[in-house]
């Protein structure tokens, strides 16, 4: 039998209604069935919301626009907050959320870019997003597209993977300043990096900002800080996974 895949969700022209930050828990509930979510499920939620709401120049009608910003979710595990933000911003109809993880749904427990409108990469295996983001940034530069910025979200424990350090060292050494890494730090690494998660970025010459990952103004300020000639890392600290 030839394998079949679920049809990719059609990109809606606009959100089915206007959603705000306050709607995100309810959107997540459509996937999880829980009314409330612990810190682990929402570790990325505030950082993602501020990024999509105020920083990224992306929208459902710009999905094929070469000049759009690129957001790559590298930490693909626990994507409910990501799907909720994509739904709130009109990339996904909210009606798809209850099917989360089911056979006919485009929404898996790790996102697949060929199925999820607005997802720039498929992820799940850790340590792939940052190298892909470096390549995307180099590719946009090679095409002469000076506008679009590239953002990649990684987890603190994801930085265990050596492939990230290949990318961090290279991007720092070459001053790849359109590249931005958002590290969600919920202290989940089994063996914490000496000096904290910002240390390898700083050592490689990146611009680094560390902020409270629940403070929207602090996140916005960190996201928009100028960093000429250097890639930029924002460490968003949230509640420890194993408190």
């Amino acid at each position, binding site marked *: 039998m030839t394998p079949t895949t679920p049809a990719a969700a059609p990109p809606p022209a606009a959100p089915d209604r206007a959603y705000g930050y306050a709607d995100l828990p309810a959107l997540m509930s459509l996937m999880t069935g829980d009314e409330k979510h612990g810190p682990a499920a929402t570790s990325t939620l505030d950082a993602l919301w501020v990024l999509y709401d105020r920083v990224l120049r992306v929208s459902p009608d710009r999905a094929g626009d070469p000049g759009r910003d690129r957001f790559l979710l590298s930490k693909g595990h626990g994507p409910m907050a990501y799907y909720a933000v994509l739904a709130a911003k009109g990339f996904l109809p909210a009606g798809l959320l209850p099917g989360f993880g089911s056979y006919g749904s485009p929404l898996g427990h790790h996102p697949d870019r060929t199925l999820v409108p607005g997802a720039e990469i498929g992820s799940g295996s850790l340590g792939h997003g940052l190298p892909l983001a470096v390549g995307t940034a180099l*590719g946009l530069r090679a095409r002469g597209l000076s506008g679009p910025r590239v953002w990649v979200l990684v987890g603190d424990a994801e930085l265990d993977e050596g492939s990230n350090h290949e990318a961090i060292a*290279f991007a720092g050494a070459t001053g790849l300043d359109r590249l931005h890494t958002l590290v969600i730090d919920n202290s989940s690494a089994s063996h914490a990096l000496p000096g904290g998660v910002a240390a390898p970025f700083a050592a490689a010459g990146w611009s680094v900002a560390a902020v409270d990952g629940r403070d929207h103004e602090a996140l916005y300020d960190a996201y928009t800080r100028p960093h000429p000639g250097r890639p930029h890392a924002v460490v968003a600290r949230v509640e420890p996974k194993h408190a």
Partner: protein
Amino acid sequence: MDTMRERFASVTSRLLDEDPRLAVVLADIGTDGFRRAAERHPDRVVNVGIREQLLVGVGGGLALAGLRPVLHTFAPFLIERPFEQVKLDFGHQGVGGVLVSAGGSYDWPAGGFTHMAPGDVALLDTLDGWTVHVPGHPDEAETLLRHAYAAGDDRVYVRLSAQTNARPRPVTGGGFLTVRRGRPGAPAVVAVGPLLENALAAVEGLDATVLYAATVRPFDAPALRAAVAGAPVAEVVLVEPYLAGTSTAAVADALADVPHRVLGLGTARAELRRYGTVGEHVAAHGLDPRSLRERITAFTDFTARAAG
């Protein structure tokens, strides 16, 4: 005559001038050949240093940004070490690129097993949609590289080697060439890339058809079926410059509805802990003309065929 790798550098450097979609990514190997191209196209000739996971990840990212990435290093560092990147950063992302390896199975025998990748084609066989070219001559390498660069968003592997045939064949980038035709029903020898002339020498004077495969994936099943048509039991010998038996399953699929026997010749699975020369390794793996002839005539009884 230049080597395949030199031809790769010269042809790709020229095409970088002509095709704005092409971008080369290196990992400290082969940078000399691209020095001038890097000066002309600093944004499209990138050396990431000794970082092979990044090499492949950057290739996937370039493809996501709309470019046609060309990645090059020694075969073990291109396919084996970053294999999950090859699987996910190209296949799972649904993007394409061209992976160009050097070194093959034992181009540098004195370098030892760390620089050998006899399993590269077999590994790619676990993935979907990879075209695999194995040129047998620098001129063929040029044709196949040009074909690969122009192949839209296909995923293509080009396996360059220091081992070559004395002269090129008119390869096109797809399908097998019939270079020697036996009588109807004669055994078919499928010779891959640089082993063609050894295979031809091995069957000198024997009633065998010889197909030349400079492109092994997709496997040209129609050509094989046509070559063995009329045999009561089709007999197929694979002569491959990488792991023995790599294409045995492809032969079985091609001849699923036809009685057949298949002999898969190639490099041995056991690690040959020897240095020395390419010629010594070819012989140690039984891929020199005399060894091939012994193994092929032990597999199929040409005497009976001639008498019958």
